[in-house]
């Protein structure tokens, strides 16, 4: 243990260690990694919301909502994510331009980051829809009915009764989807976002060490995957509170 009153040298400078500087590309790669994380989290949030909406549509009694949700999930899941990404990335800007022209506004330019979040969120929303639909159906019907009979309104029933129980059933599927989203962010470098792939490829190209930097990108993704596995384990424990494990 350090004795009390140790004085740190006043001129403590933060130096990037040579090993971490990666021939000067360390900061870029670090920024790229952060962009990748932000992109995945943003897409996760959007697809989570779209998934809940889609599941509501699929489980609703209105035929139009049902049909729209079914078309959404069928078409999106039948087209490769990269094709959709290119299709939406190029078309979103054109549609946006047409809209702003029509409304007489100034042109709004979509940056690759926003476009990436919108397209990834839109694509994986379809996968989340299926996950949530299955999970909602797994909650015993009596739970919602009991809550309604206690005088809760529909909002409250959803928030207090259905959602927390649904999450437990949805978590394995959500965890899977999250891993897929995380890996799908690698594609966004193709539409020009400077994520971890772009940073490592640039570094590799200019230092002539493609192999080293490509493997580094893979390692960064591996670390992200392992870290998120840990978080998922914690969440699983949190939402399984009050559920008895089967023991023989």
């Amino acid at each position, binding site marked *: 243990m350090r004795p009390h009153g140790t004085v740190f040298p006043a001129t403590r400078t933060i130096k990037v260690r040579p090993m971490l500087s990666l021939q000067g590309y360390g900061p870029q790669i670090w920024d790229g990694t952060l962009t990748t994380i932000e992109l995945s989290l943003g897409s996760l949030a959007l697809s989570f919301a779209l998934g809940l909406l889609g599941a509501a549509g699929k489980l609703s009694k209105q035929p139009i909502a049902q049909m729209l949700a079914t078309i959404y999930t069928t078409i999106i*899941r039948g087209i490769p994510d*990269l094709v959709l990404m290119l299709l939406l990335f*190029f078309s979103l800007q054109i549609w946006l331009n047409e809209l702003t022209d029509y409304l007489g506004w100034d042109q709004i330019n979509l940056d690759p980051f926003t476009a990436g979040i919108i397209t990834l969120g839109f694509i994986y929303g379809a996968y989340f829809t299926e996950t949530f639909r299955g999970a909602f159906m797994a909650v015993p019907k009596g739970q919602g009915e009991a809550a309604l009979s206690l005088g809760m309104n529909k909002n409250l029933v959803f928030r207090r009764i259905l959602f927390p129980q649904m999450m437990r059933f949805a978590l394995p599927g959500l965890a899977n989807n999250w891993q897929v989203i995380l890996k799908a962010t690698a594609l966004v470098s193709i539409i020009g976002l400077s994520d971890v792939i772009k940073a490592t490829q640039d570094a590799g190209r200019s230092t002539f*060490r493609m*192999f080293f*930097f*490509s493997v580094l990108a893979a390692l960064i993704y*591996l670390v992200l995957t392992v870290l998120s596995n840990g978080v998922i384990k914690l969440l699983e424990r949190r939402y399984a509170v009050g559920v008895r494990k089967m023991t023989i």
Partner: protein
Amino acid sequence: MISIIQQFGQAYLYSDGYQMTGVAMTLWLLLLSVAIGFCLAIPLAIARNARSPFINIPVWIYTFLFRGTPLYVQLLIIYTGIYSLDAIQHTPALNAFFRQGFNCTILAFALNTAAYTTEIFAGAIKSTPFGEIEAARALGMSRVTLYRRIILPSALRRALPTYSNEVILMLHATTLAFTATVPDILKVARDANSATYDSFDAFGLAALLYLIISFVLIGIFRRAERHYLAFLRP
């Protein structure tokens, strides 16, 4: 739309006049990688369930590495990474192999899908009812016969729904081939896009083609499930 079809229609479907492109290329990529992946996955799945840690841990590491990183990164490592190594460039056979974008793509795709398929099959093998194995042993079957007659037929059947999912995802993954200069559907669509600036039609046509292939594959697998999983029907 019409002009794109007139100009690029043939390239979208099978050929641009010089080489196989478009749908034909995508299907060929899919078939090769899924076939190689399947052949690799069966022994690996058996090894994954082996009792000895010296056999099952290396397989676990392999699937962990390939399932934990994006396919795009794996393709980059194999296509641009490995080829940049001196040792590869100075070995004629390896040089010839890795210089071709197509070979690198197939290698990356096959290794990737083999990792996922291994886990699918390993799970199916693990869930074989123990009574079946006991019964086979009681009849005096050897290990090889046990796997060939009892475990694999039932495990592969049980894995079919999950496996069909993996094949569809692999179809979606073949879109990455264009980054290694393989002229699949998406490559043609990108060419059409840069020639006409009609992005929505160029990529929309590609999306439509992929959608059709997906539906055909789903239909085939549905028929296969009806045939091979007939005993599970109520």
